[in-house]
């Protein structure tokens, strides 16, 4: 009963076949994620540990980027508003920009770079050094322990980080507005929040949740399915970042369209 010797002929072309097989595999991976995430027992301890690694350890970088983004954006917007003598609109302009667009995007892109690459590399190196197989043979479910915890952690942490980025970004903006227009903190806050609706906040939280899930699932998929060898590790890290960022932009466009049609 020797399996037949003929090499299989591709359906469309080799590249197209590989692409569709990959898409199919990713959807199976996502389906498996939901199946395993819902099944007890839950890996609470490892989940908290991952939240610490993913969320807390990103705070320093996020603080710096968020603060600078707010500050620079304010500085650069001032001349245009000054032409109309409308610099008093700065706080509300900036807050809309930060809450609707900048905070979710900056957070997601920074995390795609920092968290995505580290999840991709970590899982890939566990895979190629057979640590994943080692868990499997000692009757531990590596998908649950490694993948589910990390994807859940990015999905939960990135919206939280987004809120934090927004606050830090507005703080950066306030610093600049305070130094130039001598606006008080209370006045700044009043002006900043007058135009922010629950829809804005909700849409940004939703967007960040989607971004977080994307970063987690993409980098976990690539790491968990890394090909043999050490160069697979570097490749998994690299491709995780590129693919996550690409998908984040696509999702951003789609979600903005949907939200604007509701508004």
């Amino acid at each position, binding site marked *: *009963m*020797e*399996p037949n*010797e003929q*090499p*299989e002929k591709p359906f469309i072309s080799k590249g197209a076949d590989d692409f569709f097989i990959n898409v199919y595999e990713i959807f199976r991976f996502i389906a498996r994620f939901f199946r395993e995430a819902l099944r007890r027992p839950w890996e609470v301890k490892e989940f908290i540990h991952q939240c610490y690694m993913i969320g807390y350890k990103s705070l320093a970088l996020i603080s710096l980027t968020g603060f600078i983004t707010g500050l620079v954006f304010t500085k650069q917007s001032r001349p245009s508003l000054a032409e109309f003598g409308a610099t008093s609109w700065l706080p509300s302009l900036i807050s809309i920009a930060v809450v609707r667009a900048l905070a979710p995007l900056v957070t997601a892109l920074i995390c795609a770079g920092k968290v995505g690459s580290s999840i991709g590399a970590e899982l890939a*190196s*566990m895979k190629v*050094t*057979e*640590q994943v*197989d*080692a868990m*499997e*043979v*000692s*009757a*531990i479910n590596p998908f649950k*322990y490694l993948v589910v915890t990390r994807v859940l952690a990015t999905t939960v942490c990135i919206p939280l980080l987004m809120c934090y980025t927004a606050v830090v970004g507005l703080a950066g903006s306030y610093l600049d507005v305070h130094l130039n227009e001598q606006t008080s903190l209370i006045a700044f806050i009043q002006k900043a929040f007058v135009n922010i609706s629950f829809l804005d906040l909700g849409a940004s939280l939703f967007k960040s949740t989607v971004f977080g899930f994307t970063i987690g699932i993409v980098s976990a998929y690539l790491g968990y399915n890394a090909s043999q060898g050490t160069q697979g590790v570097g490749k998994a890290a690299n491709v995780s970042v590129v693919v996550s960022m690409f998908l984040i932009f696509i999702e951003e466009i789609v979600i903005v369209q949907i939200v604007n049609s509701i508004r």
Partner: protein
Amino acid sequence: MKPFTPEIDFDNTVISIRGLYKSFGSNHVLRGVDLDVHKGENVVVLGRSGTGKSVLIKIIAGLLKPDAGTVNVLGLEVEHLDNQSLRELRMKVGFCFQNGALYDSMTVGENLAFPIIRNQPKVRSAQRAKLVDVVLDAVGLSNTIDQMPSELSGGQRKRIGIARTLILRPDIMLYDEPTAGLDPITCTEINNLINEVQRRFNTSSIIITHDLTCAKVTGDNIAVMKEGQFIRQGNFDTVFATGDDLIKEFYDYNFIQ
């Protein structure tokens, strides 16, 4: 040659493989493998690199699915088990990876405790520490308990890998190239450890190797693999007494190195 091991129970077959085939695309790795392992027996699988030895034991452990054939381990058909039964079976089958496969984010002690924490959550920490001490002592590395895997040598990693496998008290041990890449003295230590594990923990084993010394010292039964099939089986002397070119080639190849 290894002296006859009286503990082997030839009426009790713990692993029985019949007509096993496995291909990766057009690469036909296993082409009709038959193998029996009896209780208490060390079976050595000898073969050149890339002949599919690792694939064979990965199928036994349920990490890979065969294309055709049956794999019966401790009376169960591995292929057809549901998740729960496969989990239970895996606790009884220990797998030692080629490079130890230690979890490199954990210390040696945590590596050893991990399978117990996950599989036997009711075991209290004091008792767990005792179990860790016992297996660490069995592999002679009690002093490394707080070290990270990256601080260990290749031979130490393998021994810790063996200890981590032993901690669940398996009935069957699968060793993937336990002596590859080690100096002769460390090889001897590992070979002795394999025999000691066989006696002390009363295990049946499959030992994969291309090291003839290891085969000679640890094997009760030796199976030589070539191009995805076993071309000869028996004890060391019967396998190598033949004038068969294939065997001779393997023998010479090993000793020239």
